[in-house]
């Protein structure tokens, strides 16, 4: 892996990568600067190597096992090590699977966009409008991730059910005359539960990215006459792109791979593609097909994200 010591983006690029204003006044031997760069390169490689090694050993290798399985042939609740493409063909062309896939995709896109928007406003408020409370509010948001997933889903049932809190509220305020049944066992319930779980995941990277954009920057821009909206659009958003992309990616991927929430809060025709993977893996004991579906799912998710982000980069250039 070759890389040059890049000037960090955002800094003014100088011919030798040092800070502006330093050339000339001091006699700095060129040899030291080169060895600095090399030391930095070695340091970078070492830094990357540790997590990379861990990742390879403990993820890529198990993944390889599944890849191997995905090419085996399924036969009578067993699989034999006979090479076949059939599993991938089925994963890619089965019309029922495609329905599950697009059903999941629609919800994943909707939920991800919603989370990014909500989290963005939330983070912005924490950083720039209510900075006094930002520390405790930030960690409070993360605390909401704990408590156990199963009891939380039961809690949503209590809230959204026929005799639940929300229906009680709606009836009391005369919004509806009898309990709304679409609140539970529906895409609505799935989306609400996913949003509940994903908002902290969206706030985390966006808020972290905003840490480096001092409120003084915004103040300065506004002193120069820019409206709040323009400030946000031209300064904050571009500088937090990695945070926004991370937030979107988390939500998108988490929803595409989800299976518990649709199982417990969705209707019979709301099951996700993740449920199908488990069906193949468990009910029919068709490991090769289950593995093939899972792997094509990952590939498509990563590809989609790549395309989306690529498009975004084009549009915002």
């Amino acid at each position, binding site marked *: 892996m070759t890389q040059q010591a890049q000037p960090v983006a955002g800094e003014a690029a100088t011919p030798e990568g040092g800070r502006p204003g330093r050339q000339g006044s001091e006699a700095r031997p060129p040899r030291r600067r080169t060895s600095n760069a090399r030391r930095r390169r070695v340091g970078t490689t070492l830094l990357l190597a540790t997590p990379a090694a861990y*990742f390879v050993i403990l*993820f890529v290798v198990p993944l390889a096992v599944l890849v191997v399985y995905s090419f085996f042939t399924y036969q009578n609740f067993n699989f034999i090590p006979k090479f076949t493409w059939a599993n991938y063909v089925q994963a890619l062309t089965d019309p029922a699977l495609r329905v599950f896939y697009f059903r999941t995709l629609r919800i994943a896109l909707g939920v991800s966009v919603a989370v990014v928007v909500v989290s963005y406003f939330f983070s912005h408020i924490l950083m720039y*409008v209510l900075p006094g409370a930002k520390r405790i509010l930030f960690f409070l948001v993360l605390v909401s991730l704990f*408590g156990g997933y199963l009891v939380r889903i039961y809690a949503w049932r209590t809230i959204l059910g026929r005799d639940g809190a929300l229906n009680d509220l709606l009836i009391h305020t005369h919004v509806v005359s009898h309990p709304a049944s679409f609140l539970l066992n529906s895409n609505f319930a799935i989306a609400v539960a996913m949003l509940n779980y994903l908002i902290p995941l969206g706030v985390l990277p966006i808020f972290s990215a905003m840490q480096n954009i001092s409120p003084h920057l915004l103040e300065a821009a506004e002193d120069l006459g820019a409206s709040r909206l323009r400030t946000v659009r031209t300064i904050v958003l571009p500088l937090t792109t990695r945070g926004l992309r991370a937030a979107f990616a988390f939500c998108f991927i988490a929803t595409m791979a989800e299976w518990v929430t649709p199982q417990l809060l969705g209707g019979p025709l709301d099951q996700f593609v993740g449920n199908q993977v488990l069906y193949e893996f468990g009910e029919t004991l068709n490991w090769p097909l289950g593995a093939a579906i899972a792997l094509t799912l990952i590939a498509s998710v990563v590809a989609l994200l790549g395309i989306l982000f690529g498009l975004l980069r084009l549009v915002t250039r």
Partner: protein
Amino acid sequence: MLRRWSGRKVGAGVYVALVLIFLFAPLVVVVLISFNATSNMNLQVSGFSFRWYRQIAGDPLVVAAFGRTALAAVATALVSGVLGLTGALGAVRLTPRWRTAVFTIPLVPLAFPALLFAVGLATFYHAIGIGFSIWATIAGHVILALPFVFLVLGAALERFRFSLLDAARDLGAGSFTIFRTITLPLLRPAILGAMLLSMAISVDEFVIAFFTAGSQQTLPLVLYGRINLGVNPGLNAIGSVLLVLTMALAFMAARVSVLEVP
């Protein structure tokens, strides 16, 4: 300090309150149900009782599993925190194309169904002779947590002022001192947030634990495995305890964080 009309602040306050109410609504219900006098899993109960708390405190299997889960959560947070930080620091100086690749690849474990990953992991452990243990589980949990830590820190490092580090180095500070006194404090909220998230992932994780923990069962293994004998608010009691513990952790983390580049 920004001086804004109080109208904006009020609106902002309302928004924040609404979001927090939404996030905590199910948790409030979880805690309320934990005090049900009967084994009802909803709020249609008129009796109040501590029986579920007494039950979990008096169950040695649950208490032992609680301890193991806590250990696993902390270990997962630490290991993934360290690995994620080193990776993010290393990746920041790469060319844009490499950077995109390095920041996309760790997302893959998130998209992979846990059962299949667990099967692959268990097969791998079996092949190289690693047996069941809580550490085998922790190793697997780190893979699930690593993407979050890595990406969050990547986002936090996006506009990081490396010139600060250069200045310190020119003033004679060693690499580790720089790291300890400048980099780390500025990244603290991101790191702590990511570590808290790693703990959340580990605490409730069932599938990998099932395939790797063996007899050193974690809390989810003990609790969710018993569901066929009846779901009862004992689960809620445990969830409430976890919530209280995490809140304490979060308060500490908030105190310790320095926020914002000056």
